[in-house]
């Protein structure tokens, strides 16, 4: 018998007893159980409902599968997915991967905190604190086998993870009828929060960009047959590693990061990077051309691994087709650095076509950035084709600025599924019921 959380929206009044019960029972430093509100602004024409949510202890725990340091474990007795703070190094990959916003990053402690199903209470035969603390019975801990997993609200994400969570009772809401009709504001005013680039994102941008650069550099050396041990090369090899460590709060636990090679794309990325650096250094200093081939191949694999990290979190054309992905950009860089005009034109066209294909005007400043980015590529391309200025420094700078911008844009567009965003999107797109009885 599979047990889990059962939620009845018609009984939830947003009293937050569940959240309070959780923090009184456990000593989490983050709020792991929260009550989300659909139509928090109480717009009169939009239905209003609440959802108490923490971790749903999915049968397919993407948080655990993606964790590079294997900080997560599955407790078969309580069927709980548990994170061990002492192993977490604060990469926040699980925050991307969980659509339910269950793993919470504690900026003070620098690690993830997450609902552990009150597994010790379950061991004592007492239900979790949150459901036990719910005074209306809206949230309960019960047998899930009888309840239909498809009975869900439209904005509840990714049932294919088999969350230990079911809705009970009515999930479709209709807006409240208010008399007199004219009294309260009808429309939602606020727009979904704009995606911002945070400090930790910068470290990832720099990591991926310099990985790209170093792979392209080595590949172009190979193509041109100008193998030499330059300081620039060594710097290019090590810079990504230095940048990536910056976004880790517990960088001294980074040695654990290859532990989950079996299932974590992030682990694979880190392993690929280490392998690539070692091979490249060896090949450069041993002047062995065949090793250089291995280095380039491993570098391209690294870039595929980097792209895979994001595709794993957001399986969406916006991500896997993105022109700012590292592999395709590296191909462009290689052709640029090696002076291969036709491949360059071909790949550049693909990149521009993709960015046009995926372009959705948002009405924000970011749209201008996209145009600037394409313009820079066109200018650089035109310079190469006309053959006037290559390899002038100014063209290199124009070109690299454009590609760097593309990588930044990738982080703007990368938005892994998150229940908070889904609620806002659902309202913003006006998908809710408008009919009253």
């Amino acid at each position: 018998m599979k047990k889990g959380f059962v939620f009845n929206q018609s009984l939830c009044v947003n009293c937050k007893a569940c959240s309070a019960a959780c923090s009184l029972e456990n000593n989490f430093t983050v709020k792991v159980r929260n009550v989300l509100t659909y139509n928090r602004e109480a717009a009169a024409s939009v239905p209003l409902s609440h959802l108490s949510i923490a971790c749903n202890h999915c049968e397919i725990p993407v948080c655990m599968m993606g964790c590079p340091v294997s900080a997560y474990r599955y407790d078969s007795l309580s069927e709980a997915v548990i994170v061990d703070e002492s192993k977490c190094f604060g990469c926040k990959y699980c925050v991307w991967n969980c659509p339910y916003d269950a793993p919470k990053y504690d900026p003070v402690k620098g690690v993830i905190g997450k609902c552990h199903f009150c597994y010790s209470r379950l061991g004592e035969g007492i239900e979790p604190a949150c459901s036990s603390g719910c005074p209306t019975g809206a949230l309960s801990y019960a047998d899930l086998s009888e309840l239909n997993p498809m009975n869900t609200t439209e904005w509840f994400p990714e049932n294919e993870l088999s969350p230990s969570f079911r809705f009970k009772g009515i999930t479709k809401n209709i807006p409240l009828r208010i008399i007199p009709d004219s009294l309260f504001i009808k429309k939602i005013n606020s727009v979904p929060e704009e995606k911002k680039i945070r400090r930790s994102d910068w470290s990832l941008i720099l990591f991926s960009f310099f990985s790209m650069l170093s792979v392209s550099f080595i590949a172009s050396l190979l193509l041109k047959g100008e193998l030499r041990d330059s300081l620039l090369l060594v710097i290019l090899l090590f810079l990504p590693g230095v940048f990536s460590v910056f976004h880790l709060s517990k960088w001294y636990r980074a040695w654990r990061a290859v532990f989950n090679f079996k299932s974590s794309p992030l682990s694979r990325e880190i392993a690929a990077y280490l392998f690539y650096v070692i091979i490249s250094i060896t090949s450069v200093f041993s002047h062995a051309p065949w090793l250089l081939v291995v280095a380039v191949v491993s570098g391209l694999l690294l870039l595929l691994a980097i792209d895979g990290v994001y595709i794993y979190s957001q399986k969406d054309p916006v991500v896997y087709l993105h022109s700012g992905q590292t592999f395709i950009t590296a191909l462009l860089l290689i052709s640029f650095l090696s002076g291969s005009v036709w491949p360059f034109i071909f790949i550049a066209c693909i990149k521009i076509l993709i960015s046009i294909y995926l372009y959705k005007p948002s009405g924000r400043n970011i749209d201008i950035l996209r145009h600037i980015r394409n313009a820079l590529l066109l200018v650089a391309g035109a310079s190469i084709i006309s053959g006037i200025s290559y390899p002038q420094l100014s063209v290199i700078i124009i070109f690299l600025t454009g590609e760097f911008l593309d990588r930044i844009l990738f982080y703007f567009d990368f938005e892994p599924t998150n229940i908070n965003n889904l609620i806002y999107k659902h309202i913003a797109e006006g998908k809710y019921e408008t009919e009253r009885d």
Partner: protein
Amino acid sequence: MDEFITACPRNCYSTCTFIVQVSGNRIKRILPFSGNRATPEGPCIKGLSYIERSSSRDRIIYPLIRKKDGTFIRIPSDEALDIISSRLGSIRNRYGSHSILWYRGSGMSGLTNEIGYSFWKAFGGTTITYGNLCWPAGLEAVRLTLGSVKHNVPWDLVNAKTIIIWGKNPAETNVHEIRFIAEARNRGAKVVLIDPVRTPSADKTDMMYSINPGTDAALALAIAKVLIDNGLIDCEFINNHVAGYESFRDSLNITPESAEEITGIPAGDIIKLAFMIGKGGPVTFLPGYGLQRHINGGQTVRSILALAVITGNIGKQGSGFNYANLQSYIFDSVKEPDSYYPDPKNDSPFRRTLSMAKLGQDMMNASDPVLKTAFIERGNPILQSPDSNKVSKAFSSMEFRVVVEQFMTDTAKIADIILPAKNMFEQSDIIGSYWSPYVQFKPKILESPGEVMPESEIYYELSKRLGLVCSENQIPEPGNQNIENWLKERIKGYSDLQLEDLRDGPVIAPGLQEIAYHDFKFETETGKIEIYSQTAYEKWNVSPVPEYVPIKRKDEENNFPLVLITPNASGRIHSQFGNLKVIAENSETPALMISPEDAERRKISDGCRIRIYNESGELFTAVRISNRIPSGAVLLHNGIWMEEGGGGNILISGRETDMGYGSAFHDNMVEIELAD
């Protein structure tokens, strides 16, 4: 780990039963107790917060005395009691015992609170308050009409076909009722809310009527007229059980059209609502206490109650007027609302009385003797009394103030001596409920920390020092066994109530009517439901039939265009609980709520610091623009400590309700502006 069953003694509808797991003299867990049919899912967030509250580091656990510089230092209990007894003695000798104000609030219910009466009677009497800050206008209105104050058991609500929530906000103040409302809806009931504000309860209903504050009687009487004009009344019920129907019928002069002018609700919708009530039986009305905290509050409650009466929705399953259910109040020698009168029957006249609603003014005006000393327990009058600036001033002008408190409240801060108060887990007691039908025992399960003494022991020690002569057992000797013996003595007259049974969980009050008035016996003079009440006229000088009395405001108040509503917050019981971390973390920060229109008019944006002011005073707080508030009204929860910005009582003038000696909290106008 030890387990106990206990019950929450707060001034709250729900009166939850819950299981407490204790280890090492600390509460580890609070779990639901399913044996209470009204609260089977366990207590609300406040109940859960006892885990923090009972062992809070902020708790006062030693007697404190105020130094000249205003700060407090710890003194030994003996010394504190010596000072208090000698001051009380000398003030009594110099000015008479009526120069002492004994103020008690509703902070903790329980039979042991009677011990204080025994002490002060033996002391020679005292000045005391009459009336009540909460609900007496409605209690009086219900009693005048039905002869007593009771309603069906909470779980009968699921049998209703129509539920009219009128000015009540169960989603925040009686969260356990939501289960029954939701279940009734599941079974096909229509649920309607009538309230100026779109409260969280609104979102659990089918429709809400946003009514102009203070005009509920006009809506009710217009509905009554539609019901009568369309023959939607229960003639047989009226003939058999109602006195004065004709007078009521003939007095009705508010039409849906004139009501539209007054209430802001379109006439057509009033007629629709009337038909829902008239045709959608059984109907249960869930009136709140806010709508009677007006100067026309008693007549408002009578008007709404009249709807239940003329449609025959009394004494039947799924029907009723659930104002308060005092069926478990079996111990009180003076029944509520009688006990709120200045000089109630059956109570030997040992006291001088001051109005609870007009406390500040009455305290300042008290002469012969002038008030010299205050002894305050279970209450926070500095924050919770209307016109709190005057109340503060009156307390400040006294010679000596004793406050029995658990935390450094705004009232504790004005004390000369603070005695640490027990919490609900530190002494056994018995409590009733004004919603569910249970009598409940709450055992002593924790040893008091520091030098905390229950009030009974404080009074014991003081009476010993003052050499008071009390009849035996009136003030039990220290020790919880003595309290339990005292309780046993107290419940001796009720064969259905044994302390040992009560230990196992809540016990249904002896003589309970699950369906109140199912026997159609009414304890009025006529033995019938008195929709026309001669007593109402004689005692309160109001029309003998329910009537809409417009709230008259003073001309000066025209400068203050916004109605101030100060209801209870979901995380607090009045001024309790707001100081706890777990409550603060799970509540919105205190702020004045205002409609987008009114905010825009004043160029105020969300989160600004604002000044709220009127003739009574001013206070500064943050503002929250909310689509839940109608234009023309602002909402500030009561019970917000001064250090958090302060409660609205600074802005509320001390006025009594039309009947029952309640406090008209919601008839005040304010203006707001940006603070610099």
